[in-house]
């Protein structure tokens, strides 16, 4: 992450602002920064999305491949996550520099998204114990300005919404084995139900209050934070403490409540935006990185 240096006076300024519910960029404690979402940006993938949250910029591409189901869940497909902290984001990530952050992020994403409650994994099964779809979710960090988890989770939800998996028909082969046949028609495809896919809300404890969508500067003032993943119904699916410091039980309770409220409010506009974008279909002018 791009290193920010915040001096004591700046810290006091930011903390006093948070106390009065007025942050450095004019937001309240529960407000997100300006967000831009675009789906279907990389045509080599089965689904893709790009999310800009302030200066944080992430690109998610999903590729579906046929694999073998895991023995523990023979009738389910699964997701694989890979987070590429590219040197584009900051020179510190050059070479193997970004690997540690990348694996930390992908482990959390795995816990949040790869379960039957978030996504209908059974729909990804082609033939139990034999074949299933494996969704490779590849996250590319292009620019980091705090709150990576939230931006990545929104991008993943948008990309899953955009994902189209070709239909497969199973026919009996000549030698008795099953043969898989993929449909050639790009419109003959399966969509994923993303209704229950959660979004992650990260809350940072600053002074006695907590803020949503902290920038790097604000993160430097906070000792610890809480990551909450919330579905559209307001169900919490995952809670994790992040950062080096410690939190009191009461503040964890308060933060989960805020996370629940903010997360629940996040889903409806997101889904509306994704549906609107899809309704425009081919007429939509693709902006990508040229806008």
């Amino acid at each position, binding site marked *: 992450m791009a290193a920010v240096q915040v001096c004591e006076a700046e810290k006091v300024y930011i903390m006093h602002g948070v106390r009065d519910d007025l942050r450095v960029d004019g937001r309240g404690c529960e407000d997100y920064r300006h967000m831009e979402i675009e789906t279907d940006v*990389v045509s080599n993938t089965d689904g893709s999305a790009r999310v800009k949250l302030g200066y944080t910029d992430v690109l998610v591409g999903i590729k579906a491949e046929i694999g073998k189901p895991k023995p523990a869940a023979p009738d389910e497909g699964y997701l694989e996550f890979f987070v590429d902290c590219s*040197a584009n984001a900051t020179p510190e990530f050059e070479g193997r520099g970004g690997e540690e952050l990348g694996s930390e992020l992908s482990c959390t994403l795995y816990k949040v998204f790869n379960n039957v409650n978030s996504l209908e994994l059974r729909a990804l099964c082609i033939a139990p114990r034999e074949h299933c779809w494996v969704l490779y979710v590849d996250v590319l960090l292009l620019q980091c300005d705090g709150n990576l988890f939230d931006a990545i989770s929104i991008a993943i939800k948008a990309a899953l919404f955009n994902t189209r998996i070709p239909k497969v028909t199973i026919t009996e082969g000549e030698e008795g084995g099953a043969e898989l046949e993929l449909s050639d028609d790009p419109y003959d495809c399966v969509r994923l139900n993303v209704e229950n896919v959660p979004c992650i809300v990260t809350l940072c404890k600053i002074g006695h209050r907590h803020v949503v969508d902290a920038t790097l500067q604000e993160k430097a003032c906070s000792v610890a934070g809480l990551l909450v993943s919330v579905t559209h119904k307001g169900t919490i699916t995952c809670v994790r403490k992040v950062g080096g410091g410690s939190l009191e039980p009461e503040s964890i309770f308060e933060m989960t409540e805020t996370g629940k409220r903010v997360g629940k409010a996040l889903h409806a506009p997101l889904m509306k935006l994704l549906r609107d974008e899809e309704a425009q279909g081919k007429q939509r002018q693709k902006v990508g990185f040229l806008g």
Partner: protein
Amino acid sequence: MAGLELLSDQGYRLDGRKPSELRKVQARMGVFTQADGSAYIEQGNTKALAVVYGPHEVRGSRSKALHDRAVINCQYSMATFSTAERKRRPHGDRKSSEMSLHLKQTFEAAVLTSLYPRSQIDIFVKILQSDGGNYSACVNAATLAVIDAGIPMRDYVCACSAGFVENTAVVDLCHAEESGGGTVMSLALLPRGGQVALVQMDARLHQDHLDALMEAAMTACRSLGQVLDGVVRQHLQEVSVLTAE
């Protein structure tokens, strides 16, 4: 490749282009705010991002620093979803390391490194979508990013690929043409002086044809140079409108 007709009897290519025709080029400078310079380019379906950091102090071991000029540090990587078959690692494989080295050589020839002794310039390029001509897209994007960072160069570096099919030189190859197994030449040119910053050719070619191929590639590079120049001028115009009173 047998069965794939790269050049039709009428003289058109697979995607309907003429042999000397380039793909559509679209580019934008200043894509990111945190980097010192950045650019994005689309050449047909090939999409590349370039980011420049520096000139800054030499990072890591001090022994890398040169007392009379700047060190140019390049990293080439491809997004794991950029190719038709998913890649396992974005960088660090042999092909990427080779490409990083080529980029470094190209930009050492173009950037006025002697102006920044004991410092380092980082150029990071990323292929977001790959459809042939990755090296040239990277060089063109990096050129724009270096200009965006305000680092002086001798000239634009423009790169283009060229191949030789049925006694005709074809330029700006797409993936299908590149993977056909024929000759592929990548050439980076400083158009004003006509100097070649890098040339690389795979597969064999009769010496008599080399001149024609080089000439075709250089013409393509010059036209690309004009496109890049247009992008830079338009970007400056937009920026100066914003900063003007």
